[in-house]
């Protein structure tokens, strides 16, 4: 733990047993432990290396899982509706069933993650556009029953008209369900999530389209699988390209996207997604290859959400990512004031 940096003796032989030099340095990198902090490159100052922010009190399986399931459900519903309208009933049916299962899973995760699950209906006390969670709750309240209706009718063959209503309704609401989750996590002080707010929605819908397309490939017969393959490829390319741009643009704040657990998950995600896309785009049509590619894409989509989740948490835990960009912002502002007095 940290000790005072005030001492009567300034001998260089002194052992340094602290994580942060109070008021003059930050938390050293792990591999630097034991080195003298005076030579540390960390330029920012902090309170004993303690985080400035509170980390989200969310469980990764619940919330990262929800980010994935919500995307899968939303995009699947839309692809299902489009497939139905273009005469691909079996693709549509499989996707509707998948969407219903996914949305049920995400509702479970969301309720399970509450501190007071029995109060989940309090979400519907108010409508607040300043709260993506409020808007999301209303979205799910509308989309969930429609997706269930669509799936129920498609699987049992009953109530075709209501089923059609559910299919179209869920198809229109689906993209909103898939995209809003980006605003949900961006609308926090968590450095990585907040700073990524320009790209995150595109990354998420790309990943959602890829996972829905992959699901379609797993459930549809070959002659109906064309749209699913195209959706998967388009989604994968969009996700990979935008995620790449995001990681580059974020610079120092984006470090947690490259390091630690979050970084590892994201690297795995990119490999799986690119590998899956490659398998699907080969000119040879091979069932095993297609299925393997689809499974890889779904796994990649899951890893992406968990990677972004963990990178965000890591960026909230280290004061460096809070203090340094804000300090730079302040200095830039002071600089521009000096230029034009």
């Amino acid at each position, binding site marked *: 733990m940290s000790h005072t940096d005030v001492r009567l003796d300034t001998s260089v032989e002194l052992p340094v047993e602290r994580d942060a030099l109070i008021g003059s340095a930050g938390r050293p990198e792990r591999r630097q432990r034991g080195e003298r902090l005076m030579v540390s490159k960390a330029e920012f100052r902090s309170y004993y290396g303690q985080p400035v922010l509170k980390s989200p009190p969310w469980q990764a399986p619940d919330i990262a899982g929800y980010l994935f399931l919500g995307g899968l459900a939303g995009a699947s519903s839309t692809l299902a509706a489009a497939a139905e309208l273009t005469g691909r009933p079996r693709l549509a049916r499989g996707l509707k069933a998948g969407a219903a299962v996914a949305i049920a899973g995400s509702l479970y995760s969301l309720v399970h993650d509450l*501190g007071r699950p029995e109060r989940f209906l309090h979400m519907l006390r108010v409508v607040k556009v300043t709260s993506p969670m409020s808007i999301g709750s209303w979205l799910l309240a509308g989309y969930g029953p429609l997706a269930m209706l669509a799936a129920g009718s498609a699987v049992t063959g009953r109530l075709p008209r209501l089923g059609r209503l559910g299919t179209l309704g869920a198809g229109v609401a689906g993209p909103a369900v898939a995209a809003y989750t980006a605003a949900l996590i961006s609308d926090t002080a968590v450095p990585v999530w907040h700073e990524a707010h320009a790209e995150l929605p595109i990354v998420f819908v790309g990943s959602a389209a890829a996972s829905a397309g992959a699901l379609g490939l797993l459930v549809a017969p070959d002659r109906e699988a064309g749209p699913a393959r195209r959706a998967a490829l388009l989604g994968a390319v969009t996700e990979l390209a935008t995620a790449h741009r995001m990681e580059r643009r974020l610079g120092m704040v984006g470090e947690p996207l490259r390091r630690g657990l979050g970084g590892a998950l994201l690297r795995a995600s990119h490999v799986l997604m690119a590998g899956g896309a490659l398998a699907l785009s080969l000119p040879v049509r091979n069932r095993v290859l297609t299925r393997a590619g689809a499974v890889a894409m779904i796994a990649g989509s899951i890893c992406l959400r968990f990677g972004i989740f963990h990178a965000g948490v890591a960026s909230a835990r280290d004061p460096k990512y809070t203090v340094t960009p804000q*300090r730079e912002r302040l200095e830039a502002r002071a600089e521009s004031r000096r230029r034009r007095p």
Partner: protein
Amino acid sequence: MALDLREATGGERDPATAGGYAEPPERVGFFTDTSVCIGCKACEVACKEWNAVPEDGLLFTGMSYDNTGSLGADSWRHVAFIEQPRRLGRQETHLAPTELPPDLLRSAGGRTAVSLGLPASAPPDGHVAAAADMDFRWLMSSDVCKHCTHAACLDVCPTGALFRTEFGTVVVQEDVCNGCGYCVPACPYGVIDKRPSNGLVSKCTLCYDRLSVGQEPACAKSCPTDSIQFGELAELRERAAGRVRDLHDAGVTSARLYGADPQDGVGGAGAFFLLLDEPEVYGLPPDPVVTTRDLPAMWRRAGLAAVGLLVALAAVTIPGARR
């Protein structure tokens, strides 16, 4: 039920007015003048007692005299302690080297004694010599919820559990909160947190119950040096500006206000501070911004992405369509 973008877009309006109160009382807040804080933690104790805040863990942190660690669900006031080899204004430290008994020195493995900055307590019999060139200052600061003009926690709360009071403060309603935890990462100061024992979030209420009957908050009442001053915000800001001038005149050039500017990223804090070093040294963010300031941009991007997804998924089904 209200479509509520007011908190985020209310500009420089009084937060209580923006929150829907027709004729609210004057906005109140705290001015915490850390230059007179003595680190007694009376505020922490008074807060716990008055608000029945549970125990927050008995830890030895090794961070000077700070064993509270940080603000949290069970710490609504937190006194930070920072030891620095710097002079405070023109003050002489009169610090003395501590002479350790030989066996203690041996058990320390030959390491040199480290002064904690405590004035030596040895008898005045000549053993103690003043260390003339040893500069030292001890910064103490009692941190608290900032009761932001544009409060991120309140903006993002999906249940309406967090609300703006008529005094312009921000308070959680325990019976409404469902523990979604969204407010926790939304706060740019890391103030609000979830209490594991009941699954709900909690933070400083600026003693809403006491304000309602014309009493000042418990921490301000108990502060023996008036480091925590409670009052009408406009008056506190004037008083604080005067105090900074006085300190500068006294040679304490490092004195500066934090959170007093209504133009800052949170529209000015209802609880602001006079600090003697950069905010991050006290664990405070140097330039906090309410996250919902960027929310319109986020909604635009999300909307764009959603429309893009709809169009793309429709487009991929067109080749080979049978109807």
